[in-house]
């Protein structure tokens, strides 16, 4: 029955684990963030998404402002040198994101007070809270592995980061 089959496929899509490759814009990955403060890093990562064509240039300012507003409610620096700055924004049709690494670390008012070296920036459509949750689930699940975390912080190029994300997607860090 076509309807049942369609529903079944939808169920599978909705429930499978999200991978980095489902939302990370590879061309927007930044290995050596130049910014040294919270607004700077957020802007740098959003501009990287626009340069990669993942979000429109004309929406960049609005997205940066929305992410900064979200940070005012409480830092998304979740500890262990990791932050997940994010916002919902009507300009995107699907969840998009990028990864940035700062070798020096950035003061992000994180929950444990540590500087942040790893950034996972997410922009999601307002009507898809499930996708956002599954991306957070994937990021946090992978980051519980200290080896993955350490390797990412040591990554010297966008290609290194991409390879690490692919390895994580292939379950090479999480048993």
């Amino acid at each position: 029955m076509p309807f049942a089959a369609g529903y079944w496929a939808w169920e599978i899509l909705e429930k499978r684990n999200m991978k980095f490759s489902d939302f990370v814009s590879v061309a927007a990955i930044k290995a050596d963030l130049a910014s040294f403060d919270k607004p700077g890093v957020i802007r740098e990562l959003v501009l990287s998404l626009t340069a990669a064509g993942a979000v429109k240039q004309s929406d960049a300012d609005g997205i940066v402002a929305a992410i900064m507003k979200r940070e005012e409610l409480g830092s998304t620096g979740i500890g262990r040198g990791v932050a997940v700055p994010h916002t919902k924004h009507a300009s995107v049709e699907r969840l998009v994101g990028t990864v940035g690494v700062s070798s020096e670390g950035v003061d992000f008012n994180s929950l444990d007070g540590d500087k942040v070296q790893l950034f996972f920036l997410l922009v999601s459509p307002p009507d898809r809270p499930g996708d956002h949750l599954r991306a957070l689930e994937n990021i946090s699940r992978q980051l519980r592995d200290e080896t993955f975390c350490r390797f990412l912080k040591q990554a010297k190029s966008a290609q290194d980061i991409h390879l690490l994300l692919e390895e994580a997607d292939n379950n090479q860090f999480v048993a």
Partner: protein
Amino acid sequence: MPDSTAERTVKLVNPQGFHARPAHMFMKLASQYRANVEILKGNEVINGKSILDLLTLGAVNGTTLCLRAIGDDAQAAVDALSELIESGFGEMPGQTPS
């Protein structure tokens, strides 16, 4: 007071589910108690005082979670944390949005 165990099953009622801000609120409240706090979802048991663990739940609106606390203030911890979840983390329609 000797250690005791308290458990309660609660349903996530806020529309956005267990995203970063609710996870932070939960962790902060759980950390005010001496008891170990765990959340059970399916076969998983996670540490309720770790934000990284809490985010791995990926729990959407309507998900049922079992809270478990073990310690001398276990019942108080489960009561307070259940109330936080059942109140929708201040994100219910009509409340200030996140």
